[in-house]
């Protein structure tokens, strides 16, 4: 489905419990993702700090901090995780202003369509794994280059 060997981990943050339950139920039925839900952005930050994370969906308007602020913090912790904002209609303008600050992958409007959301998440994950693969490849190339350089150094040493 996503080209990854491991189970994708996605987090959903919204101060409304009903939104969390809906999304979790749908995703659990339709996908095999590991879905983590948080009704507090602060708790989300605390618990996601030492966890693996592939994608995060966050509400915009929340009591402790807004979605953009949360996603900025998450970006620091998990730079490759795809960031999606789930906004109420009236918040759209504010949210759009902040999109550039945080490098948002997509914003989704409430009320959302389940299929649209699933496809957005799926694409977001694919992107995330492509990025990861790319990163891995780069690292591999770097490693190979390094070993080549090492070999070269040894050869030079051997022939000198």
């Amino acid at each position: 489905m996503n080209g990854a060997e491991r189970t994708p981990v996605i987090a959903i943050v919204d101060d409304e419990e009903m939104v969390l339950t809906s999304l979790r139920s749908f995703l659990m039925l339709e996908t095999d993702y590991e879905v983590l839900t948080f009704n507090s952005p602060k708790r989300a930050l605390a618990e996601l700090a030492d966890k693996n994370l592939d994608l995060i969906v966050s509400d915009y308007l929340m009591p402790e901090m807004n979605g953009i602020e949360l996603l900025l913090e998450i970006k620091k912790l998990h730079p490759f995780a795809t960031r999606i904002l789930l906004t109420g209609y009236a918040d759209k303008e504010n949210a759009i202003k902040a999109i550039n600050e945080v490098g948002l992958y997509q914003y989704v409007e409430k009320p959302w369509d389940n299929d649209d959301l699933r496809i957005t998440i799926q694409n977001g994950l694919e992107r995330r794994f492509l990025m990861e693969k790319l990163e891995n490849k780069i690292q591999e190339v770097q490693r190979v280059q390094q070993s080549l350089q090492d070999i070269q150094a040894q050869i030079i040493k051997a022939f000198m």
Partner: protein
Amino acid sequence: MPDSDPSRVSELEEETRRLRRAVEELSILNAIGSAIGSTMDLNEVVELIVQESVKNLNVEQAAVMLLQQDEAIDPFRTMARKAHTGNELVPFRFGQQLTGWMLKNRKPLLINDIQSDDRFQSVAVSDFPIRSLLSVPLRAKGQMVGLLNVFNKRGEEGFTREDQRLLSIIASQSSQIVENARLYEELQRRSKELEESEQKYRALMQEASEAILLAADSTKRIVEVNERAETLTGRPRERLIGRTLAQVLPIPELEEPETYDKIAESGNLRLTFSTDADGEHRRFDLSATRVSYGAHRLIQVICLDVTEREKLADHLRVHAQELEREVEAATKDLRTSQAKLVQQEKMAALGRLVAGVAHEMNTPIGTINSNADTLARSLSVLREMTAGENAPEQLKDNKRLAQVLSLLDDISRINKLACERIVSIVGSLRNFARLDQAELQMADLHEGLDSTLTLVYHELKNRIEVVKEYGDIPPVRCHPNQINQVFMNLLVNAAQAIPERGEIRIKTFREGDMVKVQIADSGVGIPPANLERIFDPGFTTKGVGVGTGLGLSICFKIAEDHKGGIDVESEVGKGSAFTLRLPIPKDVSAEGSNERG
């Protein structure tokens, strides 16, 4: 000798004196009497009396004082003659005490030494010093009409009883003459006054701006007219005098006896009539009054030319009507713009309310909508597990389970439909509040129409034929999503107006500096009573749950925001045509270019 008898001599002498005096008296009377025939002029009569009195009584001066009718003491009309001033009569002012005494006592008065007479101590008469006087009343028909006075007897002896007798005779003879002359003079004065008053009246009548006709009350025949009456009737004076009023004035009422009865009863009659006897059409106010001049009873008809006044009044009336119309129009304009303002304010308030509600509904509706979808998906999973190929046999034939699953399916399907409808309504509300402030851009309306048509396809299905009559129209500057919203509403409404099968005709064309999009349906049409209200927010005839009643009011607002509008024509049973008007941008309409934004 008897001839020399002294007593006889004295007797004879006495007789001679008596005869001589009688001759004198007779000659005085004769002179005065001849004056009656010679003149009726009061001044001349008085002159004569004064002359005769001065001459016969041997005095320095004589005066005739005529009493005014009301017996006022002052002014006496006094005429005197100073002996030394020739014939001239001069006004002679006289002490009031003397005249007062004379008026009171009405008998002769004889004073020879006025200085020592205590009755008249303060007698002082201008520049003429009076030493002695003799005064007798002038009587006519038993009434005192004046005094005859003589002053300052010449010689030493002063006034005698003889003088008084003589003056009384002169007075009694001249009284009637004086009175006659006075009456004659009075008559002349009166007749002169009368003549003047007649002249005044004539001038007044002739120069009056009203036409005046006088007719005898008995015969209704005209006895007098003025110049204006000649102009009014177009007849010269000779052809007016002697005719009846009805003959010369074009007023049918004047031929009826009741009209004159009315004048006699109320004393006045007013009416209005027109005539063109003068050559042009003129209107008159007539006032007929019954008047009496002495024994004559006359009908006085006064006609006032009111043509100009009525023209002015007509002019004023027209002007007033114009003003009234203007005020009415202005008031209507004001009402319209007020209604528009109120409407705009209502829409704005509604917009704020709706925005708030829509925002608050996002989360719960999003949740329910999502859950309904998830539930449907879960059910299909469950059905696959219980009824699919790999399902356990005991579950496959369980009727109760199948029943429950089918029930859950129904509920889930209905939930989903209900949610979709709520989502769509919230979407409408959101669009109504128009929280999206997308930029204005140049857009091709045909593209918008086509994409909207694909969206409403499920409403049209196979029952409605869509006929496109796209004209050559330039792009317009607009918010395309809003304009599409208008198309969507108009198309859905058109589809819903067609009960079975029908046609929707979409026509685009350019008219002046406007682009027009007409969406016409062959549906049921809108009754005239509803036609005015279709753009009111909340007005719907679709029944509860079908329409929000917001569609057309949103369309109207969007069109207005684009400086355009929506016109509607409809006929019950034939269909409705909604026409969206949008302005062509100045730069485009000027160049006629076809740029796209």
